[in-house]
């Protein structure tokens, strides 16, 4: 009897397979940016490379994205505590801060274009920044879609803390933190290379 009960609860690992799968996907996305940053370094070493300061708007966007991540984290906290109002409002804030991030990135591109005088095609130093941040922004947009789904759940479903919804939420958070850290990496990479 005992053995059967044990076997029934048999699980290979503590982490849910779907979460694990998302982690694997993130690793794969990282490779894309590793490739781009290596290409950046190789190209930089070949000269004809116009230096310019990192657009200040990129720091605003960083703040927006970090705060957004934080909001999402607390939203989940209040989701589990069944505090519906806080859960919903923090989720919504996280979403709009995500939009703000994209908007700031856009302004950052404008800064490179106008203030640094390096429109697309002028010099690879700026082109790399455009390409890398564009690809990153595309991943943030993907995250925003996920957040929209989370909001639909938050506003249209009855607030109930089920395993399924917890898993879904945790995966949303995992991805959102991921694009967040990815951006931090990219920003640090740029800062480091422009020092």
């Amino acid at each position, binding site marked *: 009897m005992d053995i059967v009960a044990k076997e029934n609860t048999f699980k*290979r690992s503590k982490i849910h397979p779907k979460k694990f*799968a998302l982690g694997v996907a993130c690793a*794969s996305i990282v*490779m*894309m940016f590793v490739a781009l940053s290596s*290409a950046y370094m190789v*190209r930089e070493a070949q000269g004809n490379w116009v230096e310019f300061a990192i657009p200040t708007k990129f720091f605003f966007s960083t703040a927006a994205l970090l705060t957004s991540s934080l909001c999402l984290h607390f939203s989940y906290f209040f989701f589990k505590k069944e505090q519906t109002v806080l859960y919903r409002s923090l989720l919504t804030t996280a979403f709009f801060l995500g939009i703000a991030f994209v908007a700031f990135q856009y302004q950052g591109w404008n800064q490179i274009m106008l203030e640094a005088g390096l429109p697309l095609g002028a010099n*690879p130093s700026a082109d790399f920044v*455009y390409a890398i941040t564009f690809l990153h922004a595309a991943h943030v947009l993907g995250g925003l879609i996920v957040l929209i789904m989370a909001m639909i759940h938050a506003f249209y479903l009855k607030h109930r803390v089920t395993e399924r919804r917890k898993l879904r939420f945790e995966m949303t958070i995992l991805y959102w933190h991921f694009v967040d850290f990815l951006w931090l990496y990219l920003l640090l990479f740029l800062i480091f290379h422009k020092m």
Partner: protein
Amino acid sequence: MATIAKEHLTKEESLIEELGFDDHFHDHHHGDKYQSNFITTYIFSQDHKMIAKQFLITGMFWALIGASMSIIFRLQLGFPEESMAWLKPLLGKWITINEAGIGTLAPEFYYALVTMHGTIIVFFVLTAGLSGTFSNLLIPLQVGARDMASPMLNMFSYWFFFLAGLIMFFSLFLSTGPFSGGWTAYPPLSALPQASEGSGAGMTMWVISLVFFVVSVLLGGINYITTVLNLRTKGMNMWRLPLTIWAFFVTAILGLLSFPVLVSGLLLVMFDKGLGTSFFLSEIFIGGAPLDHVGGSPVLYQHLFWFLGHPEVYIIILPAMGLVSEVLSVHSRKPIFGYKAMVFSILAIGFLSFIVWAHHMFMSGVNPWISNFFVLFTLIIAVPSAVKVFNWITTLYGGNVRFTSACLFSIGFVSMFISGGLTGIFLGNSAIDIQMHDTYFVVAHFHIVMGIAAFFGMFAGIYHWFPKMYGRFMNETLGKMHFWGTMIGAYAIFWPMHYLGMAGVPRRYYLFSNFDTFSHFTEMNKFITVAAIIVFMFQILFVVNFFYSIFKGRKVTTKNPWGATTLEWTTPINAGHGNWPGKIPTVQRWAYDYGKDGREFISQVEPLAEGEEDGH
């Protein structure tokens, strides 16, 4: 379903009844959302076995297209003087007919054909068609899982592949033709719309198609990795996995780490092509006028491409190696020789495949000093490869070999892999590569070691697991004809190419009649073309056999027709959704107990006897 009359239980079935793991899969009836109607069963299926068949049949479709293309360009190479007017109805404006009624193939289209042939065979057939088919079919079945970790993503994986194919297919009909800059898509040919007709819309569609393809590979790969790591049944530790699973697992990791790099490269190409950047384009003059691009580095693209490209060739060959290991062991009724060495070789090859990419670039102007390191690593890859070859041969040696079609193709695989691997060692020396690079020697090398070998692995897999897929056997006589025709024919095609290459005949040339030095190869080129046509016919034979057998093949009457040890043969002949009707089998021993203790084989579900040691 779960009520099988007790007296009819085979030994394995009663063991599963007794020791199996009850996950209550069939208790709560979810109305079987997976297989409730035609559409969810055959089209948007989430069942890994059906998705495997979808990958296989789509792969076969593409294989036929890719092979037909090669026949057309082989006709051009073998018989450049002959009229191609008869192809006009198929190729339309790409055949021009002069007053005398002689039809010639447009050179641009020759390049488009070569490019499409490479792209299609490498990505659609030998990646999706091979890995997609067998990873899907075998991972859940052999690790003892009900399905993939995410059946839905798995379905998307197929449909992204389908979409990629659809886009590539449409690009064939563009008025400017499909992309024609080679399967490697080097800039400037790929990044300059002015470079050739196919570099415009054709190239754009090529990139879009490949990006969808990468999404498909990633969705598949994520599932394969997660399933292998998280959904193995009780008792199935990593050292009890069949080598097929090890191979698929490492393949998926390679794909996840390398394909995104290709996407990065393609993204930058598209920036150069459409947005005026100069990542890869340097000062270029067209028609005497300079272009706007300054200071780009085409070699940078090659680095990005081959960082994918080399692992990609192992993404193609590793699954074939896994299939061959399994088939050889089953059909020679012997345990695979050196199981652990096989696993470590797979891991070593997987690791090394990431640090040899520049051997494709010895002649691209990379620093010769740096080349030395790549020579070294490249030659080191030969070591785990040789270990595997040795183990396959030793597995066969002294075995009670059943020369079925599956087994023959596995042996053929080993032969091809040796022949092509040896020429790889030539090419891996940067000094010899000065002479060999971009000649037919390279074409011979990679067609034998990758093209033919991987196809052989795939055929071995199809003949062997066809009974599991369709509940019927393929016709063995046709299978053996298929084998001998392909085996002899493939060597007839590619062996002579080594001579062409050593004499310096460059690859990717449309016509050699202006080169006196190569004029004595005319007959050899004819021979190669004729051989290619014959081999193509043998593949038609295979396709006929395949579809005929689905409907009319000899029926499988027992669950385990080959007498194999692995779990897939403990499922019902036509396994439904969830694979096992009752409990999931638990695993008690490794996968290669053949000819042990006087018994022909011992299934993985059978507990170790008192004092018996497990495996290896």
